[in-house]
């Protein structure tokens, strides 16, 4: 028994020693990225030149987004990897360059000095986009709203689209007459998890009934068709497309809700501390000042403004 105990102690010592090694080994690189190591040495070289970009795979911009990818954010036809674009069902092909987010992605790549061929898309679900540890992408582009809480876990780029939610309901139902938040109080509302729609309902509209929260947009739409919810909130361009292409049968966009507090915006999601975010922000700035972003918005998001539902 004593032998056994000694063995156990020895094991403990070895374990501690090993794990200390791990700790020291890991703190090395983290420390150096924090200090001026790479940035200092590149004082003479442009850190955002294509060859010096901090990319997952050198010479390739790996972008994550969810599968399926939905219009109007992703359009086009054909298949790419796991994505299959069926325009009639509202799904798109991220590599098509069509649809707002796809177009923005290729515009950013172009600003970074990369060609369209150097862009690779990987399927990343919303929940994967913020998981701790190594990311499988350079950035994720998936209609993800910035918030200060979220920014503690990941890094966000500047806004590439300022978003405001809109309310979708079934034509002819009583909720379609709503013009103020007070009119909405008595209805059962729904939203997709993690979207601006849900936080907007809870923080601003504050209905009497607990809003329903679904994993996927198709579930939200099904619940609306079933009459399990009276209406749902989603970003205005998605609301527009849901109704336009008939994903919601007999659907109507009741109205848009005003921005309350800070303007909500979609940002690209980066792993925490990824220096690439600075270069991408420069690219977004350039796309804003030369009017590219505005023209892409006009082209792919059309004029999606609806009557405002007053607070």
């Amino acid at each position, binding site marked *: 028994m004593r032998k056994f105990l000694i063995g156990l102690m020895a094991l403990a010592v070895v374990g501690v020693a090993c794990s200390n090694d791990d700790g020291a080994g890991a703190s090395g690189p983290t420390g150096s990225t924090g200090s001026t190591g790479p940035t200092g040495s590149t004082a003479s070289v442009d850190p955002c030149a294509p060859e010096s970009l901090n990319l997952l795979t050198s010479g390739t911009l790996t972008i994550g987004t969810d599968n399926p990818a939905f219009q109007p954010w992703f359009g086009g036809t054909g298949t790419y990897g796991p994505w299959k674009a069926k325009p009639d069902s509202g799904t798109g092909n991220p590599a098509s360059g069509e649809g707002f987010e796809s177009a923005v992605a290729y515009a950013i790549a172009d600003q970074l000095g990369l060609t369209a061929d150097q862009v690779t898309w990987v399927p990343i679900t919303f929940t994967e986009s913020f998981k701790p540890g190594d990311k499988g992408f350079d950035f994720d582009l998936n209609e993800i709203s910035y918030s200060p809480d979220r920014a503690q876990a990941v890094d966000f780029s500047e806004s590439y689209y300022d978003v405001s939610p809109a309310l979708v309901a079934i034509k002819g139902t009583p909720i379609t007459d709503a013009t103020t938040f007070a009119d909405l109080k008595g209805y059962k509302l729904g939203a997709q998890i993690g979207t601006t729609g849900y936080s907007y309902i809870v923080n601003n509209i504050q209905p009497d009934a607990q809003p329903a929260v679904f994993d996927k947009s198709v579930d939200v739409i099904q619940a609306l068709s*079933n*009459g*399990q919810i009276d209406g749902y909130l989603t970003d205005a361009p998605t609301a527009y497309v849901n109704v336009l292409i008939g994903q919601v049968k007999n659907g109507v966009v009741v109205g848009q809700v005003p921005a309350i507090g800070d303007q909500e915006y979609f940002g690209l999601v980066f792993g925490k501390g990824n220096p690439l975010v600075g270069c991408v922000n420069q690219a977004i700035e350039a796309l804003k000042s030369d009017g590219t972003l505005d023209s892409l918005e006009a082209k792919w998001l059309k004029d999606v403004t609806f009557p405002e539902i007053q607070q």
Partner: protein
Amino acid sequence: MSVGGQPDQEYLNDNDDTVGRRSRILGGGGGGKGGRGRPEGRRAVVIAMISTVVFFGVIIVAVVNSAGWTVVKQTFFNGEQFRESFPGIARAFLVNVKLFLTAEVFILAFALLLAIMRSLPGPVFFPIRALSIGYVDLFRGIPTILVIYTLGFGAPALDLAGVPKSAEFWAVVSLVLVYSAYVAEVYRAGIESVHESQVSAARSLGLSRWQSLRFVVLPQAIRRVIPPLLNDFIGLQKDTALVSVLGVVEAARQAGIDNAATFNYTPFLATALLFVSITIPLTRFTDWLVARDRRRRQAGGVR
């Protein structure tokens, strides 16, 4: 207790007393009832304590010194996030409680019906038995989440007059359908563990087939299956989290909402603690219930 009953099924067999079990956990020298007062018993306790401290010490030290610990601590064990999310999750947990309590009542009744249907003897009752067997095979074989998902979105789409559309209603229906299949099998094991001679004796005393089932077989059968029934009840409690796919905001979904809003995983820890705070006391309570029942029956046997 049946006299010369056929051997209980494995999970019904719970005959070791608590003292014996405790000493086995400690690996007390010589096994069996290693008395606490005896020196080798005390030695066993000391060794067990040291071994435990060293074992968990190594694990904790290794985890805390790992490269990713600071990130994990910040995202999974964040005190501030815990305090912020806990009240909302606790409120949502009441939905889980409501769901599993409601469902359990119907499950216990419906499953008993299924089990009785299956144990009806004779060729006349073959279709009833087949129905019960088919039902159990089907619903035990389908993943619970699929039943909830298809029924919860499909049934309201039928737009049947007078049938509720609420997600909670269909969630309970789905859980009852699935769990009744499991619980029916538990009941059946209990019923089959009661020896046929018991029924013969009851019938010879003039009880009808139904009366012998009601007054002789079922009381013995159900008493024996209380632990596995509780096992399924705990399973049910946890599976109420699956109901979130229908949009119901229960504890796990509330944690998911907080997680999606903050990209922090601590809310899931809060949810786990809430579930465990119910299941662990319930397990201990059943252990106690079973032990008490056994003591009473043994006392009866000696007399």
